[in-house]
């Protein structure tokens, strides 16, 4: 009975958008579409989103049907989103920041369909946004790196200077400084989310400059593999990349969208979906750290403790005092950085010997 009810509500929720008015019969499934900026086989960000699509299909079985479009260029995404909207999809996940304006435009045309946009900041009555507090994981990685580095120099492969990436660099540095105040950080910007060749080159350059632990905010496993080859250590990104670097991966910041995607699809099926913004962290299970490996037990134990402390709120990566490079105090002692500050971060913390690209 519940399923029938759900389906009926889904029919209402699915609604009839635009010119393609199609009556949904009771018992019909909710079609859920995903738009990816990269290939599903990147073993990083798009791969991880696709894992959640599969988890959704497994969890809700025949109540849902899923499809995806991969490698969608951001400047050309409006049509891709609209073709999902027109082919009967009731819930559409657009998973890259650059899909923001196109998502809003299509959502306006199809007011009864529901849209979920990852990492953006503009919402509408039928557009929710969601993202993860990756900086929480980065802080713990920083602590681990600070404890393990022999050369006192860490390397960071960064993608684009947007706040999410900059706040990740800062959190990593603050974590490292909390255990070794003299730690150095070298940063290479590769201006791509996924380019194994460029990422490997950047990794080589950083290792040659004396960094012995690498962190990355790009999606391929190439930097890890380079570290593995040279007998150095590194952190994975987006998914657990242990199989690519069994001797080098310390942990990986895994995006786990499973719970969120399933929760939103259920809400549409039950007719309780509402537009909202979600910024989940370790506490919510959205940011997961792959099993700690390749480190002594005491470092592992301390990392586990930090993870727990962040989850229960006793540790905040941007706990004051936090200073900018020029010495101005941005977060007062005893206070935590407010969310809007983290969401708009375009400056480095004190101790980073570099300038953020503007």
């Amino acid at each position, binding site marked *: 009975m519940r399923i029938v009810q759900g389906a009926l509500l889904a029919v209402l929720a699915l609604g009839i958008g635009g010119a393609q008015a199609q009556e949904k019969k009771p018992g019909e499934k909710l079609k859920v579409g995903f738009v990816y900026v990269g290939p599903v086989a990147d073993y990083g960000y798009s791969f991880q989103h696709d894992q959640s699509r599969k988890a959704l299909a497994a969890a809700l079985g025949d109540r849902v049907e899923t499809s995806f*479009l991969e490698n969608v260029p951001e400047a*050309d995404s409006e049509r891709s989103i609209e073709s999902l909207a027109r082919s009967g999809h009731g819930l559409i996940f657009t998973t890259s920041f650059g899909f923001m*304006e196109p998502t809003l*435009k299509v959502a306006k*045309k199809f007011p009864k369909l529901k849209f979920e946009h990852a990492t953006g900041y503009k919402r509408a009555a039928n557009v929710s946004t969601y993202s993860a507090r990756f900086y929480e994981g980065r802080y713990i990685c920083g602590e681990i790196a600070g404890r393990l580095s022999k050369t006192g120099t860490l390397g960071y492969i960064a993608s684009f200077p947007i706040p999410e990436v900059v706040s990740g660099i800062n959190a990593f540095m603050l974590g490292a400084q909390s255990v070794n105040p003299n730690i150095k950080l070298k940063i290479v910007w590769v201006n791509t989310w996924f380019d194994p060749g460029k990422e490997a080159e950047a990794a080589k350059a950083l290792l040659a400059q004396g960094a012995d632990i690498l962190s990355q905010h790009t999606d391929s496993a190439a930097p890890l593999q380079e570290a593995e080859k040279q007998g150095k250590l590194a952190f994975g990104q987006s998914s657990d990349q242990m199989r690519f670097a069994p001797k080098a991966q310390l942990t990986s910041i895994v995006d786990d969208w499973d719970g969120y995607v399933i929760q939103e699809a259920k809400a549409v099926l039950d007719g309780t979906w509402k537009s909202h913004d979600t910024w989940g962290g370790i506490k919510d299970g959205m940011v997961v750290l792959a099993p700690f490996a390749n480190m002594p037990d005491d470092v592992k134990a301390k990392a586990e403790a930090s993870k727990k402390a962040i989850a229960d709120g006793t540790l905040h990566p941007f706990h004051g005092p936090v200073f900018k490079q020029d010495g101005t105090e941005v977060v007062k002692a005893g206070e935590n950085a407010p969310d809007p500050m983290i969401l708009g971060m375009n400056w480095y913390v004190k101790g980073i010997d570099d300038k953020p690209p503007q």
Partner: protein
Amino acid sequence: MRIDLTPRTDRSALMDALSPVLAFAAALVVGGLVVAAMGRSPAAAFVTYFVAPLSEVWSLQEVALKAAPLALIATGLAFCFRANIWNIGAEGQFVVGGLFGGWIGVATHGAAGNTLWVLPLMLVVGTLAGMLYGLIPALLKVRLGVSEILTSLMLVYVAELLLDYMARGPLRDPAGFNFPQSVTFDDAARLPYLMEGDTLHAGVAIALAAIVVATLVLARTLFGFTVRVVGASPRAARFAGFSDARLTLAVFAVSGGAAGLAGIAEVAGKIGQLQPSISPGYGFTAIIVAFLGRLSPAGILVAALVIALTTIGGEGAQIDLKLPLDLTRAFQGLLLALVLGADALSRYRVRLVPGAAA
């Protein structure tokens, strides 16, 4: 064994006309076999790829939207390629046109009073910017003898990085949380929509008009005649006193201007703001379109429609048949190879010479 290609003395007009059709049929057969090998119905795939996009008003508009920039850029390139001059940098000229035209859209954001002049100025500036950018490799070739193939290609990356810098830096939306995109343009800076549903914009009509003008210029003017003669017989052209240098500059100006116009039409039409990337590779795909269309404006129009159709059908195939995007790309490549192959066969007689050294 050696393979000899001798020009046919008895070229049949029928075969000339039929060869692309036969090549298309052959591509369909091979594509169908691949689809069958993947366990899907070739008939269903055919319908999804080639019939479904043509059966809805919306997707017809999308086909036109996708074909217009390809056809416009390719028509410009036809002037170069016919004269044996190789502009590989249309992608860069497209980007520069979009950037400088779009700049006016950003600068006039929120302007009060009479703003009717904004859009025409954007189109003119975009065209001129593409033209001037195209003249750089032309001048280098004429003055210094530098290969235009290399310089025009390398300038693509310069243009892309310039746009990337501008969208992240000086032209970034000040109220956009540091995210890399400009403000969205006012309506006065947008190309109007031609049909209900806000899909088809006036850029398509502008592209069509430009192609008609190009056809007339190529067929009816002294300049068009020069281009054709130089392409057909460079020696004869030199005896006739046509200047190589002047022609190089002229065809680069034409193709750069066409690409620049396509760029600003895309920005003022579909995108509506400046982003770090505005092209899904139109400038490069247009090279394929130019050759698929045998460097004639009418053929180019057909070729652009076919490429647009397979791209949009390919999206449908991902959604409805769960066929991968790679299959669409492979099919487009196969089509080009077969069309060029069939063309060669209709122009040349192939003889196997047994025993001779290769």
